[in-house]
């Protein structure tokens, strides 16, 4: 390879690189997507009610919150972190969003801003615990989970926040041209974060920190600031998710989101994220979230009891990740 050839070569290389990258990504989401399609087709045959606009929109709206919070979780997981506090923080955001409407008469947009602000603050706390206090993410966010839930109960006196105006339901139950508003928000969030991760410097740093934090630090990335930023952004999305959840049931629920973290982590991992950092994509996560949602929806449509549902969900989680791992080993066999 001589220097003269290089530019031309780079040009050619670029196109094929681009193609290869696309294909490799497509393959990477292949397993989860295949599972999704198979399940979709199976359900279409198994239940006459499945393939109806109503049901599909229902699934969309039901999954919206999980998908948004799973998106947040994916960002954190890419940095080699984990956020166990999502459930508590979503509850806190939803409850406070509902309280400012009920008690202070805030309009919906302002309440949403409050919820997002609560999420951002919690994210900031998580970020500082991880970066400044150097507490491992699992523990930092486990603490936030416990503290957050305690605060929700203290603030509400352990009673749901009721008596909200009809307008409060807009985020969760409203529609735009027949499409649930929550679905629209989810799409915007997913596309935005996917773009951020794959096309911007912020995204590049996120993957770099998860892949090798020390290398990122030595490369002159301000890892403390940047990692905190990831947690804050994740918190913003969790706050938004919590607000949508509250809006869907038209009340602030102190019990909301218990063990939500397991669902969203499962979605991210089914979608190809690695808990050891550096890997994960939003498309995959969204597919993962819908896969879980379809199983749950299908189980009810087919009147499968919750007990068998749990068994089926477990098996599907195993299967999705097994095939994904298998495919990757075939493709790379890293040794």
């Amino acid at each position, binding site marked *: 390879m001589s220097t003269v050839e*290089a530019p031309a070569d780079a040009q050619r*290389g670029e196109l094929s690189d681009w193609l*290869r990258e696309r294909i490799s990504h497509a393959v990477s989401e292949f397993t989860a997507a295949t599972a999704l399609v198979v399940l979709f087709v199976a359900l279409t045959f198994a239940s006459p009610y499945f393939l109806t606009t109503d049901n599909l929109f229902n699934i969309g709206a039901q999954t919206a919150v999980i998908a948004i919070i799973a998106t947040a979780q994916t960002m954190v997981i890419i940095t080699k972190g984990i956020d166990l506090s999502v459930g508590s923080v979503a509850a806190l955001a939803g409850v406070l969003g509902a309280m400012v409407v009920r008690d202070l008469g805030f309009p919906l947009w302002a309440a949403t801003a409050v919820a997002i602000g609560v999420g951002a603050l919690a994210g900031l706390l998580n970020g500082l615990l991880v970066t400044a206090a150097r507490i491992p993410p699992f523990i930092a966010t486990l603490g936030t989970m416990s503290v957050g839930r305690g605060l929700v109960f203290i603030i509400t006196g352990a009673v749901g926040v009721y008596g909200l105006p009809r307008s409060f339901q807009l985020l969760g139950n409203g529609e735009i041209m027949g499409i649930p508003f929550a679905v629209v928000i989810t799409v915007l969030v997913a596309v935005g974060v996917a773009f951020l991760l794959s096309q911007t*410097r912020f995204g*590049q740093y996120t993957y770099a920190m998860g*892949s*090798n934090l020390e290398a990122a630090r030595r490369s002159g990335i301000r890892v403390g600031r940047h990692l905190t930023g990831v947690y804050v952004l994740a918190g913003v999305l969790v706050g938004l998710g919590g607000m949508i959840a509250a809006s869907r049931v038209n009340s602030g629920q102190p019990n909301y989101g218990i063990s939500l973290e397991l669902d969203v982590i499962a979605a991210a991992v089914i979608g190809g994220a690695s808990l050891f950092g550096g890997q994960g994509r939003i498309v995959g996560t969204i597919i993962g979230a819908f896969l879980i949602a379809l199983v749950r929806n299908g189980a009810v449509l087919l009147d499968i009891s919750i007990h068998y549902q749990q068994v089926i969900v477990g098996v599907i989680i195993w299967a999705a990740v097994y095939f994904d791992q298998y495919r990757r080993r075939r493709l790379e066999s890293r040794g």
Partner: protein
Amino acid sequence: MEARGIVKRFGHVEALRGADFTVRRGEVVALIGDNGAGKSTLIKTLSGVHPPDEGEILVGGRPVRFATPVDARRAGVETVYQDLAVADDLSVAANLYLGREILRSGPLGRLGLLDKRAMRQGAAAALDELGVRIPRVTTPIAMLSGGQRQCVAVARAIIWATNVVILDEPTAALGVVQTGRVLDVVRRARDAGMSVVLVSHNMPQVLEIADRVEVLRLGRRAAQLRADEVSTDDLVAAMTGSAGTDRDGR
């Protein structure tokens, strides 16, 4: 650039016990010493990875504090670490530009949008210069051979250096051709007025390229020598302390 009386402790291990070190503009200084002498540790204090416990660092005669690698980089100090410090999951191109990404021009760039094509082309050109064959610049680093990884790390430091380049055993895993290219690059950097610090266990290489040699032993400077006045044996003697060289050196 100069370091004075650097002390660095890890728990109860004292890796540096008052080490001194000097490199001037337009000079290649080889830093040599036995395994565990403290070379890598000294280099990490110079590049802000390990802030020293005692002692000071001077750049252009003025004391500076490198609390983080960002500070050192801002002062134009670029380093290849012995343990490489590359992000395995990122592509070769992304690693080369890590922390210094090329952004799109215009407002999109100000939003942090990457110009991936420019980075791919730049990376291909830089690696070409070192004569290394790498499948594609979009390959993740995890898939490269030991020598290929090292080439990426070296290319990375060379692209960005403006003032001081520190190379901690940069050719340990390189083939003969690539080693030659790296030495060429080192010479060119010196000729462009940069300071180069080279850590190596390869004495012939040291004598070939360095203007001066500083010897570290047990965390202290044991000798300062002119490369054209000494032989391999002198260097070995200085490192191991088996001869008197370390006493009269300086």
